[in-house]
């Protein structure tokens, strides 16, 4: 049993590794905040998410010990993100390719709920 915990203790981890990990994360945070003050257009989103992904990976590999852990745990973690990616991808396919259809004689307004369903029973005159 002691063998088990000692493998966990010595094969990986150690205060110096954790300190270095923390410093890396803090530097990356500084970079991402700094980058947000520069205008890269669409690039800002990409940069921010890219750095966030690096940070998340570092946390997973070192703080969460995935680097030294049984591979099955890494597979499970990746599966979570993979299926989230699938979810995201298909939703974006739909929203990105909607046609934004409008009637030819559109007056710029979508009909809103009115109180009276019967014809001729229109409420107060519409302010147009």
């Amino acid at each position: 049993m002691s063998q088990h915990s000692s493998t966990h203790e010595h094969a990986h981890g150690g205060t110096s590794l954790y300190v270095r990990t923390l410093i890396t994360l803090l530097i990356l945070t500084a970079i991402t905040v700094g980058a947000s003050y520069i205008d890269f257009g669409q690039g800002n989103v990409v940069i921010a998410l890219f750095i966030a992904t690096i940070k998340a990976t570092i946390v997973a590999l070192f703080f969460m010990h995935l680097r030294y852990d049984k591979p099955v745990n890494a597979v499970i973690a990746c599966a979570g993100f993979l299926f989230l990616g699938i979810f995201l991808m298909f939703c974006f396919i739909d929203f990105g390719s909607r046609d934004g259809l409008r009637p030819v004689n559109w007056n710029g307004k979508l009909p809103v709920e009115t109180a009276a369903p019967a014809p001729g029973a229109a409420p107060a005159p519409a302010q147009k």
Partner: protein
Amino acid sequence: MLPPQGSAYAAEVDTMYMALFWLSVVLFLGIAVAAIGFAWRYRYKPGRVTPHQTHNTMLEIVWTVIPLLLCVGIFFWGLHGWMEYAVAPGEAMEVQIVAKKWIWQFEYPDGTRTVNEIHVPVNKPVRFVMTSEDVIHDFFVPDMRVKHDIVPGRYTEVWFTPTVLGVHHVTCAEYCGKGHSDMQAKLSVDTDAQYANFMETGGTEWEDYKNNPAAWGKLQYERKGCSTCHSIDGTRITGGGPSWKGIWGKMEEMNDGKKVLVDQDYVTESMMYPQAKIVKGFEPIMPTFQGLLRSHEQQGLIAFIKSLGNDPKGGPPAPTMLSLPPKAQPGQTQAQPGQTQAQPGQAPAQGQK
């Protein structure tokens, strides 16, 4: 098994359906014969030793690949048919649908509106651009083999070319509450003559207002765009025309200094030939409504303007009852099935509120 075909597209769908149907029958019979046949042929006998067949790679590849190819074929066939449904031809007539619990409103390009009843000319593509006022509904015409959800907050479309004269059933196919199963409409596919007549009379909606022309006129005031330039509360709309409030029976001064009594003749002239007389202080910007207003709609507007007068009972006379011009009453009207019947579920206009 399938409802009657009402459109060219229906034939396409039905061919696909029947092909899948017979394919399914064959495959089902294959499975059933195998399952029941094996159960009979290899029924239990004490002491019989069964062979130890763990797998047969060749066979398994065959029964994986053949269905796969079959599925690819079916997908593309279905896609081919669906493309016709998905893309409306450019020349299609556009009808707007506004669905709400639990009625259908149809609006034609010229502003004519009908409720729970729609007329389309035969053999001409018609495209429905639809939105909902409350929850999701679904425009389903079984005879045309089309349906599409109607989503609040945006527009969706569906189209078809009706080929069969007569009445077809329109039904709501997305659950929308208590009246879901009563949300029905009649789709009347007309000959060109019938359709022209329908457009001339503007459907049957006006008949509900026969005895209340002012309410009918108010509806036209909102629908035909009068309200963008003419207020009915006495205020002046910038870049618009005179308010209708209290205008009836007044002596208006024109920009050439003449004074004119606001009566039926004057109002009719203003609608048909708006540039003929311009009220002093206003710009000659009103477009003509010639050909855009049916006689009963004109009568309604006049009655409505009168009802906004300072003394609705006084002033020059205005129509008290809507009527069609005599020429619009030929024998053709009897051929229109939907037009002469009362519509179920549609409340009469007057007396509400």
